[in-house]
Every structure is written in C-alpha cells, then in structure tokens.
C-alpha cells in the first residue's frame, strides 16, 4: 500500500487507458487474450472511475490499433497532478487479488507454522512486490487462479481446478505452458484407466474450450477485437513452442518434456505436488534462457512457496526462494531495469533521463580505470550467472520437495 501510488511502468498506463476507453465507449470485447484480467479491471474501474480526474484528456486514446502508449502520452499521464491517485486506483485490484492469494496459501498448508513462512515469503518477496506495485502489471490476478487451482487439486476437485486454470490462462496466456503439466498431474495410479481417462478428458475439454472461446465468440457473434491482439489459440509463438519451431528454444523444449516425463513417473498420487513442482520447474527453466523483463519472474515464486508444504524440512526450499529473490534483485538493479520506470514517473518533463545516477552508471564511472575485468558488462554477466545458479538450485529443490511419507499416508487413509 505504501508504494502503490508512486511507481509505475508505461504498460500500466497503456493497460488502463484501454480500460477507460472501453468503459466510455461500451466496448466489451477488447482483444482475444487476457479477457478475464480485462473484465476484472473493467469492473473495478467502473466503480472507481468517478475518482479519476480529467480522464478525457489524460486517457485519451487516438488510435485503437496503437493502444500501447507512446512517450508523449505517457508524459502527459505522469505529469498530471493526480497521477498518484490514478496509480493507487489502478493497482487496487492487484492488491485485492494478492490478499486473496495469501488467504489461499494459508488454506493450502497442512502445518500452520509452515503456512506462516509461506505467507511471509509471499508478502515480502521483492519479485511479486515489484511486478504488482512498482511495475504495475496484473500478475496478481492469474496467480490467484493458479493458487486456487493448486488448492482444488489438493482437495481432488479436478473439474473446478480445470476451470480455475482456464481462468488463469485467460488472464495471462503464458500459463498455457503448464496446461500439459496439469493434465499429467491428474493421473491417479490407484484408479482404473477408465476413471483416469474420464477425468483427464473432461479437464482437457474444459481447458481446450477456454482457449478457443475468444476466437469462437469473434467468429460466431461477429465481434471485432477493439485493440487488435491475438489469442493463445492463434498466437504463432504459442503454437511454435509446441511444434519446436524456434531452434533457440530447444533447451527449454527438452527441459519441458523431461519435466513432463519425470512428473508422470512419480510413484505416488499427489496431484497438487505434481502440478506445482512440474509447473515451477517448467517456468524456472524458461527463465534460464530468457531475461526480457524483470517482472516476468513474478510467474515463478508462487510454485516453490506452495511446495514448502511437502518436504520433511522446509529449510532448503525456503532458502532457494530467498536466493532467487536476492540474485534477481542484485542482477536487475545492476541491469538498470529497476531504475528506469521510476525515472519516467518522477521526472516526467525531462527527456535526458540518461543523466540519472543509476547503479550501473555510477559503477561504470567509478571503475572506468580499473580495466576490463571489472567492466560493467563483466559484472553484469557474472550476476546473470549467479541468478541462473539460483534458478538451478530452486529447480533442484522443487524436484526434491516430494511429500514426506507421513503426508502420503494421511492422504491414502483419507
């Protein structure tokens, strides 16, 4: 709450400019993807819109096909005297969904001492704090649905869990990559193949329908997406992933299928563990080879945090989460990402942002005469390696966090 009004990335402005425009122009089909996130933001802003100031000017959208803000429009937004109020209002749904996720985490844990550790790691981990309240991205919404999916899997409510995962995928399309993990985690070796097939086919059908609903709506109801964005269904990147179309993605594809096989081969039937460990490992593998934006990493911490529930000792996996947070923070602050968005908000009228004394700039100035060993690039590469090491350690700990025998026996008795 303290930081909510003061920081943002231009993406937050673009997002809510689309929402404001949709409310003012009765647009209900903005794009094919992320519809759930859009409707939640739409509902929130419909309530809070009277508190926005000069919205016709500040959120004016000239060309719907170019709804991602340019710097000029963003500077008008950040230069407005009520910018802090606007930011606070825009982030309110994220705060609510964060609190709901915290509640789901609490319910998820068998041991409430561990639940306390998990909740603390959820509230105070800098990665999700950064994504939701500094950067201002909507990651809290799909993460809530993911947490709920895990809880419902634990309670063996498979079809409701499938609906929840569908909501997560339609909140943030990246989560389509964990859909196969979810399907595999449904297999129960204690049941007949008929019962297994029935559960898996029904859940698979729900997921499939959720992915094709937006393009079907567009086709049969003759709707036109106002802001022209594709869906998971027709996104060539998502399709290319499964068809191995990108050679630079091969390591990820191998890691991905290896994970699926390992999860499928687990000799016990804890659906929730299989889903969390498999999904966590798949997403962590993704960050081994891509480092596009600092806030993407917010997709990851929820999985190991929930996995704290299982192993005999919570220490190692908790430490792995802390290492990830620390290495992410140091790497990102040195890379300059964390400096950038703050400047754009706080110094809206200055285009010469490069003069800001950011950490990489200050370091570069201080070590300019020490030779190439200490160069900024070298240090940055080293920090990236440490961060990748923390990811490997986390992957190992997530795999190792198998449910202790006591938990498995309790489950079997139930």
């Amino acid at each position, binding site marked *: *709450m*303290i930081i909510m*009004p*003061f920081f943002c990335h231009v993406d937050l402005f673009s997002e809510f400019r689309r929402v404001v425009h949709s409310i003012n122009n009765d647009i209900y089909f903005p794009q094919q993807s992320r519809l759930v996130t859009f409707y939640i933001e739409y509902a929130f802003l419909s309530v809070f819109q009277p508190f926005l100031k*000069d919205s*016709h*000017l500040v959120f*004016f959208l*000239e060309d719907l096909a170019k709804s991602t803000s*340019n*710097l*000029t*429009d963003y500077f*008008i937004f950040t*230069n407005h*005297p*009520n*910018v*802090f*109020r606007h930011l*606070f209002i825009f982030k309110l749904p994220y705060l609510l969904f964060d609190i709901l996720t915290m509640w789901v985490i609490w319910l998820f844990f068998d041991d409430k001492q561990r639940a306390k550790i998990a909740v603390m790691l959820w509230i105070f981990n800098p990665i999700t704090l950064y994504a939701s309240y500094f950067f201002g991205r909507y990651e809290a919404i799909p993460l809530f649905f993911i947490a709920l999916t895990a809880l419902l899997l634990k309670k063996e409510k498979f079809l409701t869990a499938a609906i929840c995962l569908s909501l997560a995928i339609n909140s943030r399309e990246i989560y389509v990559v964990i859909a196969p993990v979810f399907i595999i985690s449904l297999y129960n070796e204690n049941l007949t193949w008929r019962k297994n097939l029935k559960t898996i086919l029904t859940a698979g059908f729900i997921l499939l329908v959720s992915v094709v609903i937006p393009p079907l709506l567009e086709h049969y109801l003759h709707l036109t997406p106002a802001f022209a964005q594709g869906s998971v269904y027709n996104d060539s990147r998502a399709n290319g992933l499964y068809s191995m179309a990108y050679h630079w993605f091969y390591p990820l594809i191998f890691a991905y299928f290896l994970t699926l096989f390992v999860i499928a081969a687990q000799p016990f039937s804890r659906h929730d563990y299989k889903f969390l460990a498999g999904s966590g490992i798949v997403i962590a593998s993704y960050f081994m080879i891509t480092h596009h934006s600092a806030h993407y990493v917010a997709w990851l911490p929820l999985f190991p945090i929930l996995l704290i529930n299982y192993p005999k000792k919570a220490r190692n996996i908790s430490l792995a989460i802390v290492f990830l947070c620390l290495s992410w923070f140091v790497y990102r602050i040195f890379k300059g990402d964390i400096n950038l968005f*703050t*400047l754009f908000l*706080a*110094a*809206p*009228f*200055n*285009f*010469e*942002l490069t*003069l*800001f*004394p950011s950490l990489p700039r200050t370091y570069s100035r201080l070590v300019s005469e020490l030779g190439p060993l200490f160069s900024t690039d070298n240090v940055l590469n080293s920090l990236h390696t440490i961060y990748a090491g923390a990811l490997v350690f986390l992957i190992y700990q997530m795999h190792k966090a198998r449910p202790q025998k006591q938990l498995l026996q309790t489950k079997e008795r139930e």
Partner: protein
Amino acid sequence: MNTSALLGLSLLQIISVNSIDLHDDGSITIGDIDPYLHIEVPEKQRESTGVFVSYEMSNYPEKYHSELLFSTNLHGIDGQYRYSFRLDGKKDTTLFIPIDFYADEGLETLRWDFDNCKGCNIKITQFSLVQDGSKKNYEQYIPEDYKPLTFVKGGNALDEKGVHYTIEKFHISGFEHLGGKYLKVKNDNPFIVSPLLDFPLTQLGGVYLKLGVPSTQNSTLYFNLGWRTYRLGYRTKLRLRKQDVSNKETEIFIPFIPLSNEKIVRKFRLRFEPEIGDVWSFEDIMMIPQSLVSQYDHLIPELVDYPGEVASWSNIMRNGFKKMARDLPFFVVYLLGLLGVLSGLVLSFLRNKKA
C-alpha cells in the same frame, strides 16, 4: 469542475481550462500563455452541424485570434481539424460556425483557443450546438467580416528554402521593443513567441537565429526552445542550451526533435536567461526545413540541462511533493488508510501476544 458559473456553457461540461480565470459572475479572463477552454460534447449532440456562440467583452484588443478545434470519434485534437479566425475586438460578438463535415465522425470535444487576447474579459451568453434541422436559422450569424473561415487540414507546406520572419511578427514578453529589430530585456522572464506557423513536424528541421547582443557584459547566453502543438502546450520540449556570445553576436540553429503522435508545430517559444537591461538585435529568424538541416547543424549550441528538470534524486522528490500538495484530498484519505491498516496490524499483534 463547476461549470454552472459560466452562463452560456451551463449545459455543457468543461473538461479543462488552461490559462483562463473563471469568475463568480460567469465571466472569464484570458491569460497569457496557451489559453483555452476544453468542452465536452454531450452524447445526444454528437451529430451537431454547427456551433453558435454569443459573448460580451470588455478590456479587449483591436484584433485577436481565436480557433475552434474539434476532436471526433476518429480524430483527437491534433490540429488537423479546426476553424481558425481573426476577430475584431468589440463589445458584443455573435457568430455561427458550421461544422457539418463532422457529422459522420461523431463530434466528441471542442477546444476554444484565444490568442493575443491577454486580459480580455469575456462573458459567454450562449454557446450552443446546432442540429442540422435548425441550421438555416443561424446562418445569418456567419458575419462577412469573419469570412473566410479557414478549415485547415494537415498544416502548411514549408518552403524548401526555409521561411524568414522578422521580430515584429513575434509576440514579445519581458522585453521592451525599441523599434525595428532591437529588444531590451525588461524582467527576468523574457521570451518571444512566434506567429502561427502550422508546419508539419515531418518537414520542420529547426529554427535559425542570427543575434546581436551589443550591450551585454556576459560571454554566455542561456536559452531554451519550446514548441506548441495542437495537443500539447509549450511543455513539448524544454532544454537549456548555452551559446558563446563573447563576440557580441552569434548564429544559432536549434533542431526540433519530433515526438511521436505530434503532427503540427503551431508556434514556438524562445525563453532566455536574461541580464536585465541588455539590448539584443534579432538580425534574422528563419524556419529551416528538414532537407537543409545538414547545412545548419554545426550551429547547434551546447546542451545543458534545465536546472529544475534534471532527473536527480532531489528533483524527483520535489516533483513528488508538488504533486502530493496538488491532490490533498487523495493524500489525506491515503494516509488515513495507511494509518488504519498499521493500527490494525499492531493491535492484532498485541492481541496475539497476550493470548
């Protein structure tokens, strides 16, 4: 914004005013820099085909310039859609502006701009949007002396050789005009504002100045160039530059760096960091097209940041506090909310400890 005070606009919602004072008696006073009223068109009147305006003036100049800009469903206020007209200053003014070419696009907002009318006191008695059916009743109010109304689309083409201006055509503030090309610095905020340019930013490369500073004791001249487009005021660009004037004369070329989405440069403004009493001569002022920039770019002066706008820690904090002060109701609620959450946490902690 309380619009009920403006009699003629009582049925319309004002989105914003800039450099205009609203008075309790329903009148407005026009300010110096970039004055305009931005008005929303109600849903039911978006297919209007004309604007009927009637107002009374006091303290008016002999002539002033006014513009009515339109934004539609398809186009924002970017200067491509507007009526521009020069008006004689007189006590009562009634005019009708036909805008039938907007009916298909759906009129959304109107912006009424005033130039060269600083200090004018205007009482708007009527500001109505006219529907197609009753348009004929108002056509008599398109007075001949307001014709031809210009409908400008796309801006003026900039001559390939550039366009020369003399200082007489500029609006001058903080200077005393000594006649001809000579200006004397009168206060610590002197600036000059160009006449209406309307050049597309895609064609405009920059402005060339040939200056003489015969009386100055300083060897360096500090100044910045701001320009105004149809969506933005002079905040478009603010950079402080410095130029060596130890020879008592100088040639300067300042480039316009186009910002995306901004299409037409309406006017530019040059602000100077002055020495009061200095006399300057403006030997030549010329708008340079993009095609000639390479011939002038060796005259670009050194850039220094404007002291109040560098992205330093202190300026970031100052800027933040300034914004907080301008939105006190929000910050009171925000701080009370924080206090509430904090008290709740402390109380529940104490209760748990006791239990």
